[in-house]
């Protein structure tokens, strides 16, 4: 048998206990073990940004993060950013309004990245937004609308 370790993860303000092999990534822990499938697997190699979530408020790629590495840290996923009453986060609302997605598969990663981008202060101009959102690929090509959505959400923040 392969070895498993017990982890206790703090995700979206909730505590999740799980037993996984040490090699299980945060991405696979979310998707395969915790039924939090909003975080997407696009490449599993750190090359697309679809798996972006926040660890201690900082945007990271969950495909290159071990679940074991984030025990004791605050993890936020796309499921955790709307208000408890279901009201969308301003970035989510702006994405809908600006049609900043088509297939929707890169969208959770884009939104998690955008929330952090604004918080980091890297949404000061369209050019800056483009550069700081470039770690999130979108093959449907919603980039113009993503920039518009991030700009609007940044102006409201």
């Amino acid at each position, binding site marked *: *048998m*392969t070895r498993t370790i017990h982890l206790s993860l703090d995700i979206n303000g909730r505590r999740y206990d799980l037993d996984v*092999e040490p090699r299980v990534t945060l991405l*696979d822990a979310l*998707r*395969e073990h915790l*039924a*939090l*499938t*909003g975080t*997407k*697997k*696009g*490449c*599993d*190699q*750190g*090359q*697309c940004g*679809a798996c972006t979530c926040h660890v201690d408020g900082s945007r990271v790629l969950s495909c290159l993060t071990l679940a074991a590495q984030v025990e004791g840290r605050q993890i936020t996923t*796309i*499921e955790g*950013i*709307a*208000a408890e009453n279901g*009201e*969308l*986060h*301003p970035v989510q*609302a*702006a*994405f*809908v*309004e600006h*049609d900043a*997605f*088509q*297939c*929707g*598969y*890169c*969208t*959770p990663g884009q*939104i998690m990245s955008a929330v952090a981008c604004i918080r980091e202060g890297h949404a000061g101009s369209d050019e800056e937004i*483009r*550069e700081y*959102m*470039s*770690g999130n*690929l979108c*093959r*449907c*090509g*919603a*980039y*113009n*609308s*993503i920039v518009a959505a991030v700009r609007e959400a940044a102006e*409201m*923040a």
Partner: protein
Amino acid sequence: MTIMEPRKHGDASDGTVGGRQTRFEGNLKVTGGATYALEYPVEGLAYAILVQSTIPAGSVVSVDAKKALAAAGVLMVLTPDDDMGLLVASDWGGNRPENQPYYPLPRQVQYNGQSIAAVVAESREQAVEAARLICITYEKAPHVASFNDTAAGEGKVMDNLTSGWGDAEAALAAAPVQIEGEYSTPREYHVAMEPHGLTVKWDGDQITVWEPSQWSHGMARSYSEWFGIPYENVRLISPFIGGGFGSKGAALAHGAVAAFAARKLGRPVKLALTRPQNFTNYGGRAATRQTIKIGATEDGVLQAIVHRGASETSTYADWPEQTGAATPILYRIENFSSQHRVVPVNTVTPGALRGPGKNPSAFGIESAMEELAYKLGMDPLELRLKNYADRDYQSGKPWSTRRLREALIEGAAAFGWSKRSHEPRSMRDGNQLVGWGIGCGTFPVIQAPSEAMIRILRNGRVEVVSGAIDMGQGTYTILAQTAAEVFGIPVDQVEVHLGDSRLPGSAIAGGSMLAGSILGAVHKAATAARDELIGLALNDEKSPLRDTGANTLTFSGGRIAVPRDRGPSLTLSELMAALGRDEIEIRRNTLPEGATVQEQHQAWTTMAKVQGPTMGEYSMHSWCAHFAEVRVDEDFGTVRVSRIVSAFDCGRLYNPRLVESQWRGGIIMGIGQALLEEGLVDQRNGRTVNNNMGDYLVPTNADVPHIEVISVGIPDYGASALGGKGVGEVGIVGVAPAIANAVFHATGKRVRDLPITLEKLI
């Protein structure tokens, strides 16, 4: 956290056909609530991983799976030694060889990266680790890595793609001005953000497949035929799909492997392709090359076009990427000759990728037209307008609608084309050479029969039910808008159920044919349901509208009323309650009256009933003109697109907000094609070595400028019931030549082989 007030999107007309309604399923997608194929909670899953060939040609002598089978968690290894007892399924046309065995893990190796074995384990991690312990012994055979390989030969002429009229060779020879160029495009890949994969579960001889699909019914048929089970026993579920671009229209070998494994194990199986496997497991756009010769008069009137093209295909199937697809219809041309060959090489069979055929074809003809313009010393816009095609010279038929002239003129105006200076290298900004270019595009209107069901529920909600797919084009939204318009209700009173082979059959979400096809069926069913309701309301003794003397009713503002307010008005739910009805369900399709059950099945599960662009009295196509501005660093050769204006004739737009998104998406993929995308094949072993998203480059946000899109279309009721023409494919067609032409204008260097990477310019 700031909570955003719910905002109203424009006015009520946004919710009707042609309105700018925001994406119907938007909230699900921005909250992570949209469930994609690999995300369904299924109890007792086992995980499968494919093992692929590392040689390009030969055969598998043996597969040593001992170590893998001994590894932790491993449940099963499948190899070419396993006879799965499957039969070959029909092709897209519905043709099927009789009783021919199907081997999804074949012994014969025909390309590098072909699936040879599969490992199934308790966890994905265990399957991945065990897969690396499989030891395959091959007997290698000589291979042909690409059509540039000297061993590849000339390939075979595709007779059905040979076309000509007039006397092209003679007219070319007689033309006072001639140009000739060879244009080539490399292998390109879909790179949908969602990788391929599936979860599959058997219940007796019933199978449920959760798999991203552009065509739930067509793919369900493959599973039923492979496994010899009735079509009704297959349920393929695909309500959300993370991009397809042509790659998810057919069931593939890995689906058969997963389904077989699940049946043999007696457990549901999830199989996910790794990102690198997405580059070898199914085909992207074939590499192409084409020679174009154009003859013209000195004042720029085209006299002849001679086109000879070729594309790579596999050694086991002929897939032509038609380099001559756009060539005959973009311009007025009396003498024309075109021929296309396929060259078999050791690759997976190529497939459809956004704008198949038209796309590389337009790269050729639209580059060649600008070469001619420069040879003539003529503005490329003027040359295009001068040779405007008044009809389809290939079919001889009139256009249904063709607003390409308007696209060129309005696009040019918005772009500021009149401020252009003609000479190459004549516009500069510091170290950057600035250039402008035009590329026209086209894509045929294709139609297919479809079926839809409308349900009016007692609570006043209206359901639209169809097996059609939404992969981001906006199917949910436009179907909701259609039903909302017919019933005069807000869009949020409509529910739309899609992406399930158990639901009414539909055209494939491909070839830009879905919206026009399915909207016809939904509109027909919704109108029939409304008529049924009117009949009940006017005749049923329980109806408060019965004795009003009206002979019809109006549906508006959420209420059903007698025309000119001469009586009571009710909401849908009030009327349903008054009638004592729980539900009104109407199913309609767009097949001819009296189609048999077999004909219906054939229509939903094959391409046999698909109508091409010239099968009626008109020639029907979408059109576009792209205007690109590039900035080329004169020292580094790096090209950045700084501006794009594109004008489109796609007929009536069912939802301009979503259409604009699709156009921009196509244009952005075109930017990638022009500047970045190229499958790099190692000639020594036929391996695509940049088989990942870090090395096969697609555009990032920073590569994309603001893109202005303009609609110049008018409703085309020959093209579809509601007047729209195709939207999704045409956007990419013509982008690459617009950029290549702009690069020439900037630098004076004509790059005829894509992508235009920096080493070609320094």
